[in-house]
């Protein structure tokens, strides 16, 4: 977090682009599984896994873009830390969301039960509310 403390805009820009890279690569891997017709991903019995990993790919990419948008917002509008520590909290919440939302979906797809994801999916709502909180903190400042 030392970079983030010095320049949160740069930090989130870096996180954003790296996240986009990771989850675009994941998208290519998922397409590869389609191409190879891998049963553990495509079989109807594994529909929940496919759903979870697709969601992980989509949310991860989106969160990468949100990180970039967050960083650009800080720079464009000159947003700085306030007395209430909003920037530190927003940055932390956005980082948690970036890890937990796509990570929860990815983990939830590893071990699946009938129509339910694995316990990793429990991270998803935590990540979701973290994102909501980060967006709310940022929106208030604009």
């Amino acid at each position, binding site marked *: 977090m030392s970079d983030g403390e010095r320049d949160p805009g740069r930090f989130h820009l870096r996180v954003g682009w790296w996240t986009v890279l990771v989850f675009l690569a994941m998208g290519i891997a998922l397409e590869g599984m389609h191409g190879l017709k891998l049963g553990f991903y495509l079989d109807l*019995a594994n529909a929940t896994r496919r759903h979870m990993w697709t969601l992980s790919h989509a949310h991860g990419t989106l969160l990468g873009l949100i990180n970039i948008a967050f960083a650009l917002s800080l720079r464009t509008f000159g947003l700085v830390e306030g007395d209430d520590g909003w920037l530190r909290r927003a940055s932390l919440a956005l980082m948690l969301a970036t890890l937990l939302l796509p990570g929860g979906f990815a983990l939830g797809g590893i071990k699946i039960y*009938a*129509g339910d994801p694995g316990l990793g999916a429990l991270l998803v709502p935590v990540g979701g509310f973290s994102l909501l909180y980060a967006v709310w903190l940022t929106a208030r400042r604009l």
Partner: protein
Amino acid sequence: MLSMPDSLLTSLALGAVLATTAWLYDLSRLSRAMFVALWLAVVVGLDVSDLEASRIASVEPSASRPLLERTDGYVTSQACQSCHPSQHASWEQSYHSKMTALPSEETVLAPFEDTVLSYRYSYFPHRRGDEFWISTDDPTWAEPGEALPVSRRVALVTGSHHQQLYWFERPGTRAVGRFHYFYRIPEQRWVPFKSAVLSKQDMFDDPGEFWTTVCIRCHSTHGKPRFEPENIRDADTRVAELGIACESCHGPGLEHTEANRNTLRRYLRYLLGGPDDTIVNPARLSADRSLDVCGQCHAVQSLGSSARIRQWSRNGMPYRPGDDIAKTRHIVDARPGVPNNRFRDRTLRRDPHFLEDRFWPDGVPNVSGREYQGVKTSPCYASGEFTCLSCHVMHRPSDDPRPPLEWANDQLAADRRGNDACLGCHPEFAEPAAIEAHSHHASDSPGSSCYNCHMANTAYGLLNATRSHFIENPDTATQLATGRPNACNLCHLDQTLSWTAHKLEEWYGTPQPEFPDPEHQRTAEGPLQALRGDAGQRALLAFHLGWEPAQQASGVDDWAVPVLGELVNDPYEAVRVIAHRSLATLPGYEDIEFDYLAPREERRQARAELLDSWARSGAERSSPARLARVLIDDEGRRMQARVAQLLDQRDTRRVFRAE
């Protein structure tokens, strides 16, 4: 899908959380507005999901066919799909799911393309937009005072594998009427009802309420005919679901779906394992109870009393998977000598043919689709572990290499199609040398197939012979006593019964019976049963003359045509159909045309032409001794006098197979 109270509670809870957050953090007006918008979006979303659920539940397009009704804890396969998608998909691929269906572009297999069918009256199946209709001058279709011709919309279709039946709507009742024609799927041909069953009687002459009183039991899930015995025509029929669906085998699903809305319960079960006691899994039942699940439809049975029939009509079958089936219906035991068999005696007084229409004289079923009694009386069943699921799988595994339709044909597990099915309990025959020593046939030949020797094709159904599910050793004495062809001679059609008896004694020590009839020592079983057997035996022989293992073992090329020539002109249409199919498997006869529904004179003429062409063909003949057994003389001609003599001896008694 959330129920209404669930969605209401969820909406209120979310609203409370958002309001508390707004109050605690003293939010700006914009933020409060965003929270209200979020809450409204969730509420609207939940309500839309409820509306969709209620829309699906209330689909009811017609008042003249069975009402689809979710009662008595039945929730239909739709409720199972979201948690069990692969099981649902494999069930949809099975023929069980399409046992009865609403008519649609996908389900109707016959060409409703302006064809006029004539059997006593004229029938005109045709399309009207997306609907399927039949117009007719048949007075039995008309309501009192209604002028002919009448047009009726197709209400239901039954079957999708071998043949399909069509049921039409009748005004003012949910008891659908039966169309007189089957559509035969392999031959892609309309055939009159009586021609698609092994019978000479022109049964079921009026439209009747056959689906409502008979088919509904097994071709729907939780069917309730709701008729008064004195007025079946006005039945108010209801079903939970058309076709044989999830709840037919797993029992009503309401308790299971309700219990598993609880996420914590689901995850505890995933993590701790063990059965879910809110639903029945036939694979976890005892052998008795598991077999009973299939026995609901695959047993010869009766409700046994008029009180039970009334109860069934009002409330549906009381049996639920996991129950002892014998407590709520009578499973017919046709074995002679079974003590205190009051039902058997009472049934025979009412219908003297009841047993012979369904069983060989020793109580082994002679019709397909009624395997329960055969399995239950087999020696293998005594092990306590043998059930239908020992060989069959109701849900195609994802690693099954066969295409879905191939699996659906018999729903055998991929590793149960050959001898592996038996080796689990009989590992001593696993090695090729061991099976050869046992069977006295090459290990990779049909003669070393457990199925061929111990589950011969002696059940008749759907214009085919199918495997008996009474697992037995081949025995000529049993054949003499019951008329059921023995497995050896269903391959070795060119050998006599006494030859088989001699081999069985030599190889297995099976005592040879007496053969007072000299034909059993001089005439091969193939032609013998085909010429003088009863219609049931002739149908089986007609099938085996086209069965590849029998053709290989019997060298049918030089003698089968004249035999099949008699069978394609058999008095029974079903025998003619099967014989024609077998004839087309012989070299040089692949394209032979023979209309089994043609008038008698035409058929006789076609038979004569067939025999002439065979006589002129100059086909290569084998040894005189063998040819004599199959009624061919030294010069390669048919032994007319012997054939005529055997035809004179033909067993012409009434035969009906109540499949």
